């Protein structure tokens, strides 16, 4: 009996060691790819969100908007606030258009505008256009514990990484990106993202429902709450055109 118990324990230990060995064998690049697949690895995705901007004094204001995304392409429409009716089309890095309802005109947005915040929030337009971790960063495992890998990421020169460096906290097992921080060239932290409230949006589609962004230089915060999340809807490329931008005006 004792022998049998010891045998079982040994089997468990061996199995754990084997599993652990597999986990350790995963390279940072592989983890980054798997995490990105979990977060962005869909043919297309649609999100309906409320963005709450939280000032340092605690006062809040909220805007509702939707994002339709396919690869690098995004279509963002505001449905409340002073920007209601405004829409942004991101065809790719450097190809951004805005529909301005006041002028009834589609205007090409210059790259310098991408540095601006997204609707006064702590998201920049660059953050919103950022759709691929492995396409923009290389990674190294900085540390890990039982639950997380912490990846130190460095921007790939010539790509469209929004910041020079990042640190990503990836949950082991699920590859969910639970938190990440962006750094400037001097290595100072600029912005942190905390993702929480892992939710099943239907059919086992898991996604953190809440994203809290903190500007670490000012303490200003923005919370994004996802109301609806749909993926792989076979959205055609024609949804990401100026024709569509004008049609929705």
């Amino acid at each position, binding site marked *: 009996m004792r022998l049998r118990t010891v045998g079982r324990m040994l089997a468990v230990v061996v199995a754990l060691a084997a599993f652990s060995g597999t986990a350790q064998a995963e390279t940072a690049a592989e983890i980054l790819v798997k995490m990105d697949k979990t977060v962005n690895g869909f043919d297309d995705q649609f999100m309906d969100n409320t963005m709450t*901007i939280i*000032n340092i004094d605690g006062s809040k*204001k*909220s*805007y509702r908007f939707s994002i339709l995304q396919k690869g690098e392409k995004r279509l963002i429409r505001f449905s*409340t*606030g*002073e920007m*209601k*009716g405004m829409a942004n089309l991101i065809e790719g*890095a*450097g*190809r*951004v258009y805005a529909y301005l309802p*006041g*002028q*009834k*005109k589609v*205007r*090409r*947005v*210059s*790259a*310098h*505008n*991408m*540095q*601006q*915040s997204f609707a*006064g*929030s702590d998201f920049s337009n660059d953050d919103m256009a950022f759709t691929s971790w492995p396409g923009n960063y290389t990674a190294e495992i900085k540390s890990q514990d039982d639950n997380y890998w912490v990846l130190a990421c460095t921007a790939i020169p010539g790509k469209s990484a929004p910041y020079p460096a990042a640190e990503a906290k990836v949950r082991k097992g699920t590859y969910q990106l639970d938190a990440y921080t962006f750094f400037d060239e001097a290595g100072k932290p600029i912005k942190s993202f905390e993702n929480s409230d892992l939710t099943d949006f239907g059919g086992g589609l898991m996604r953190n429902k809440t994203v809290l962004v903190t500007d670490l230089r000012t303490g*200003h915060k923005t919370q994004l709450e996802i109301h609806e999340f749909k993926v792989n809807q076979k959205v055609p490329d024609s949804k990401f*055109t*100026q*024709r569509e931008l004008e*049609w929705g005006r």
Partner: protein
Amino acid sequence: MKHKTTLLFAGVILLASGSAKANWAEMISLSGSLESDVRFITDNWRGAKKGQGYEFEMNRNDINLRLRADPTERVQAVVDTRLRFFGFNEAATLPELISRERIDPFSFQLTEAYVAVRGVPWSKMDIKIGRMIQTWGTVDMFNPTDNLNARDFSDPLNFMDKVPNQMLEIDIYPTDWLTLQAVWVPTFKPSQLPPSAVLGFALEYDDNGCVAGFPAPPLDADGRAVLGSLFSADGPFGMDLDLCRLNFANPEVRTVMPKAGISNSQAAARAKFQAGPVDFSLSYYYGRFKFPVAYTAVADVMSPGGKTSGFVTDSKTIDPKKYNVKYVAEVMYPRMQVIGADFAYSSDNPWVPGFKAEAALILPEKVDFGMSAFLDGEKLDLGKDPANPMRTITSSNGSGKPFVKATVGVDWSYSDIFYINLMYVYGFFDEFNDRFGLHHFFVGATEFKFLQSELQIRMSSVLDMTDLSAMIYPQLTWIVAPAVELSFGYMHFFGDTSPRDPLDFATKSRFGQKATGRNVAFMKAKVTF
């Protein structure tokens, strides 16, 4: 014919109606805004009479409602309306005091009302028909290729508004990088002018109540010499330009409107290209210039004790001791063709500004201005050549030769904090290379944002580099809460209110002349829903 057109369009909609939506709530979306605008005149020298000013110019409330219905994925109907309350009592008599419309006047405007059908009869083609507003061109605001809709300058603080018009628009999207557009506008609509525009033809009076200035007709040097000779000591009036001896009735300006025939339709076509960091387009427009161009003028003069012509002099206001003058002018809307090109360049590098440029080659109709004068019922001989006396002064007010209007601009921003937009503009909205010519402008706008863009300070200015008049327009906007904006600002014009040469149309100051508007301080509130 009308019946056939209706049937045709109904057929197109039927073709497009594939998957109808389940219920009305899914189909309809409503949006809009409430706006309140209070303005105070901060001068007393730019009005019709000296000393008028330091009073409220505007006390306006607008309710804007936009209803969009999407009965199917391929059909869209839009109705965009504006209910405007002007805020000033217009009841001037006791009977009018029983009318709410006079005490609280308002207007209802239909900004847009159109039906759009997508993918019919070809998947890459859209059709829109109805009352619409089009904006062409890549530069900001000063678009010389944007000629389909007339401008609405009823609000001098708003250069963006346009007069809607009925039109048929066909858009074709053959590839990702090419869009073709054709628009037909059956009838002509002129631009809406600011309330101050009438001052462009108003008389000036001095402190003694004498006429101090009158609208100069667009004459060349020879024509001005003939006009000046009328007022010399040996001229027919023999008064050596003593304007105190004139009893000048308010000038009357009549418009010569194009008839509603098909020959006065407007048509335009455009090809838009996307090529990497550059978007550019080529366009063509056939139609008319939307601002009035001086065409004819008649001065009817009755000397002291003389006879009336019975032609234009208003006998009720005749002063038997003075020269009584009535001036009637006509303005028209010349035809033009516009060949346009524009581009926008956007670099991947955030430190490189965005570049935009737009140019229009305008092939205008020739406009010959003619002026005649009557004295005591007899038509005066205003001929320049004694051997071949003409009875009118004629002068070109638009040579008919092609000319160019253009805008070149750069814009750049630094994070959320700072935005700058600089433009060189050749030819303002209402300039047609007539006797006034085309002026050169420098336009600058800077914006500083604070508190996560809740507070915005914007400074806009336009300098006329030709006559050195200018306009400045500082504005503070506070986004009190999402969808609620409060704005405070000021608009001030610099430049001479009177032309340097009272007989020379071309020496009017662009922003100095009273027709441009008043210096105002304003407060606006806007709620968007």
